[in-house]
């Protein structure tokens, strides 16, 4: 494990002092202390990063691979494994429950992520103005982030109750008939998305805000001189400037949406694990839990988990391709 001698191109780093090792004063430089010192210098980086990698290997990587292996087996809770090859995956492909859960995960993901990020952008834009009491607004919009999934889902389940919930009461005041938030597919998915959106909008707004504050002020001043409206400035300066941050939040929210579990589970009460009376909001995670811990089919549950991973990899690939083609477009524009 020799340390490399080339200077690092990145940030400044520490290396062994050049020339003879500088041992503590009054000590023989070639003695055991100096050797110890050198070992200390070379080995400690690995000691510092070791805990992360040990924990990851034991509780992340090994289970990940083991889940992949399990997904090729027929295995029950507490039972022996039996080779099945891709059988679990072909079964999933033939299962209506799987396609239903996949579609639900997608639709709930879209109707929670898109409004959430758009509203967060708008909020960040507002908070970026010089306003009084902005400290208060920042803490206030972040408060939902401190609320647990379970508590939020329980409160919203009451607010969305079909018979006595406050949402239907409010709709009643403007002359809209009570909506069946629990049993009808789209209302139920909207209700669940509302919980997600409520919890995460403020968090994303603060991330955008931080990025917006790094945008140089001259850009806005120049635009104002050219007579650009504030909205125009927002579209033409702010959004392009914080694009990397927007991409980052899209990726993070997509990962979160793919894993959606607690909100539908608790929103549904005793029907939560099935994702409602007609599985109208059963997500992939819920289906995986049902297969693994209610039915006891761990092999199939593992296959669902791996489908989720493949989905995320596909999304990551698409995102990378998109950002690359965007960069090419920019280059092209610069050249022409």
């Amino acid at each position, binding site marked *: 494990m*020799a*340390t*490399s001698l080339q200077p690092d191109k990145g*940030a*400044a*780093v520490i290396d062994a*002092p050049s020339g003879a090792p*500088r041992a*503590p*004063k009054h000590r023989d430089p070639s003695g055991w202390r100096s050797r110890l010192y050198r070992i200390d210098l070379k080995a400690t*980086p*690995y000691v*510092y*990063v070791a*805990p*992360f*990698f040990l*924990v*990851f290997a034991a*509780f*992340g990587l090994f*289970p990940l691979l083991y*889940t992949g292996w*399990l997904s090729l087996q027929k295995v029950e809770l*507490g039972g022996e494994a039996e080779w099945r090859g891709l059988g679990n995956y072909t079964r999933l492909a033939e299962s209506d429950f799987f396609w239903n859960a996949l579609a639900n995960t997608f639709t709930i993901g879209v109707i929670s992520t898109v409004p959430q990020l758009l509203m967060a952008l708008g909020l960040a834009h*507002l908070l970026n*103005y010089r306003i009084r009491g902005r400290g208060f607004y*920042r*803490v206030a*919009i*972040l*408060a*939902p982030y*401190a*609320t*647990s999934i*379970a*508590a939020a889902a*329980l*409160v919203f389940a*009451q607010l969305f109750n079909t*018979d006595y919930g406050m949402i239907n009461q409010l709709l009643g005041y403007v002359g809209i008939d009570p909506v069946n938030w629990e049993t009808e597919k789209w209302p139920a998915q909207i209700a669940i998305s509302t919980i997600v959106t*409520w919890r995460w909008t*403020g*968090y994303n707004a603060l991330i955008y*805000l*931080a990025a917006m504050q790094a945008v140089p002020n001259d850009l806005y001043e120049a635009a104002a001189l050219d007579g650009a409206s504030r909205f125009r400035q927002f579209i033409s300066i702010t959004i392009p400037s914080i694009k990397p941050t927007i991409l*980052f939040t899209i990726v993070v929210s997509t990962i979160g949406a793919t*894993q959606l*579990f607690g909100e539908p*589970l*608790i929103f549904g*009460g*005793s029907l939560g694990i099935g994702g409602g009376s007609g599985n109208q909001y059963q997500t992939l995670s819920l289906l*995986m839990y049902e297969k*693994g811990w209610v039915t006891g089919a*761990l092999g199939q549950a*593992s296959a669902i*988990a791996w489908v989720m991973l493949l989905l*995320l990899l596909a999304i990551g690939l698409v995102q990378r391709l998109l950002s690359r083609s965007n960069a090419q477009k920019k280059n092209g524009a610069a050249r022409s």
Partner: protein
Amino acid sequence: MTYALLVFAAVVSLFPLYWNLVAASHTGERVVQAPSPLLPGRELFNNLSIAWNQVDMGEALINTTIVAGAVATSTVLFATLAGFAFAKLRFKGRNVLLAVVVATMTVPPQLSVIPLYQLITEFGWVNQLQSVILPSLVAAFGVFFMRQYLLEALPVELIEAARMDGAHSLRIIWHVVFPIARPAMAVLGMLIFVQAWNDFFWPFIALTPDGAPTLQVALAGLGSGNHTVNHAIVLTGAFIATVPLLLVFALLGKHIVGGITSGAVKS
């Protein structure tokens, strides 16, 4: 206009929390009546004592504090060490290892729960808090967060000077790295504490409401009883689970806001 929209956003953010308190202070019958109560009632203490006993919220509260405290402490410690190494030390494979750290952030927990569940069953750890603590001892996000901070906050000259004076690594960590990293460590500690306090998926699998649940697992149990559910009691439980974090927020909200805006962005 700006103010109107911001006030609206603040109201929408805070109202469900306020209504949670209102519902927790009425009887179960009143909560399920339209029009819904909008002002606090008089049943809060009565509801608290019922909820407290029904699922042993006291034990859940202690369990959650232990889990979140242990996870936050160890994450901050290990993440600072690893973040320091990635930011300021040179070693073979540094860039590759850092890439691995970042990549692990995208792996969903669903991928590991089945083997983990088999593992804790094997060890007899179902309903034991260590089954929730151990997998969370250190988080990739924390390592990355500390690296970003130390990259700028820690001058290399300081470490070099300490080395010239003959300080060994532990001394440098203790006397140079930790004091400089302290603000970031505090923020990371709060973020991880909030996250661990609210964690649901794995605790829901590893702990049962009748065993040694965390608050979130206890709440899930309260909300999905097969017999008639008293919604005031359920929401009182939700209130108990939320209040400690809201207090933390009221006291340290500014710093948490600062932490989110400083650390999460630079990707």
